[in-house]
């Protein structure tokens, strides 16, 4: 990853409100690398505990990647929306397995459950990637879901990171998403 992009990620966390919500738009090419750099920045913050919603990478694969990249996974809980669809889940202490990314209500409930179970004051929600929801749901449904989720991040005083890949985004959806967050950081250029 270019130094310029690393700086962009670091700077994204400057000049934010006490509780913040960021959208990162990433190109598919080096998606994972940037995703890890962002997560690393989030977890650097004092006493942060993160809830990682994975929409396209199974927990078992994701945890290996994160550990390989020296991410402190002790500070993370997971909501996995993909493994059950593949029929390969086994019980994990730190992960909730949901049926599929189609059931947006279940995702909302799972976030509520995990967040309320975490005692830390500094909680972050990490959604990877938002655009996957558009594969499984209509744009209007995802927009409503996003409005609720971003509202939830605000009312629960969480910090939030939403990731998205540029090409998958419907322009109207992208525009709405941008309005719900405090800052949009385009890492696709």
């Amino acid at each position: 990853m270019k130094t310029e992009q690393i700086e962009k990620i670091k700077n994204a966390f400057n000049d934010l409100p006490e509780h913040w919500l960021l959208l990162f738009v990433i190109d598919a090419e080096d998606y994972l690398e940037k995703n890890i750099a962002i997560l690393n920045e989030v977890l650097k913050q004092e006493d942060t505990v993160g809830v990682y919603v994975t929409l396209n990478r199974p927990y078992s694969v994701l945890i290996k990647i994160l550990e390989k990249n020296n991410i402190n996974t002790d500070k993370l809980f997971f909501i996995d929306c993909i493994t059950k669809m593949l029929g390969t889940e086994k019980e994990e202490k730190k992960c909730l397995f949901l049926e599929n990314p189609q059931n947006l209500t279940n995702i909302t409930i799972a976030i509520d459950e995990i967040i309320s179970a975490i005692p830390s004051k500094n909680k972050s929600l990490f959604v990877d990637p938002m655009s996957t929801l558009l594969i499984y749901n209509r744009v209007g449904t995802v927009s409503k879901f996003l409005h609720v989720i971003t509202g939830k991040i605000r009312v629960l005083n969480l910090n939030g990171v939403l990731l998205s890949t540029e090409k998958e985004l419907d322009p109207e959806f992208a525009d709405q998403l941008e309005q719900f967050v405090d800052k949009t950081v385009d890492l696709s250029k």
Partner: protein
Amino acid sequence: MQEEIVTTNKKMIELKNYESVLIVEDTKSLRVTVNDILKTLQDKPIIYINLTNTYNSVVSNLKKDELKINNILFIDCITQLAGGNVCNPENVLFIKEPNDLTSLEIAISKFFESIPDEKWLVFYGFNILKIYNKEDIILRFIQSIFENASASNAKIIILSTHVKNDSLIKKMAHFFEKVVMEIE
């Protein structure tokens, strides 16, 4: 005595001269514009509807930007939707969700009626209404707001982002005395 104009931006002074203004910009510019507007109007009674953020978050951002909020009645359509606790300060009305246009309309008209002098409706994130309502319903809502405003001597500023071929913006533009469209 000449009225003191509390503004940093010439465009904002001009906007004060119109009865109704529609501003269509990209999200980044719109955030700056709405703050400029609220700064310009901070000594006037305002009903401020923000469909993109919760009351607590909006207030904390405005305070960070050193804006006076004493004259603002906030309308929050998100907190209840997101399952948040509804506090009860005097300067906010919570509406269950953005498809409850009737409650929104009642809140606006009550505010208009309660203040005999100059007052403003500032509506930010207007296009979010499209997530929850059909276009014709939104147009009827707008028409009704304009009728109320005209009967109560209220001024309207609506701020929206623009998506290519946005038919709602095209259909509602004719309601306004001034349309500011700054799209690249």
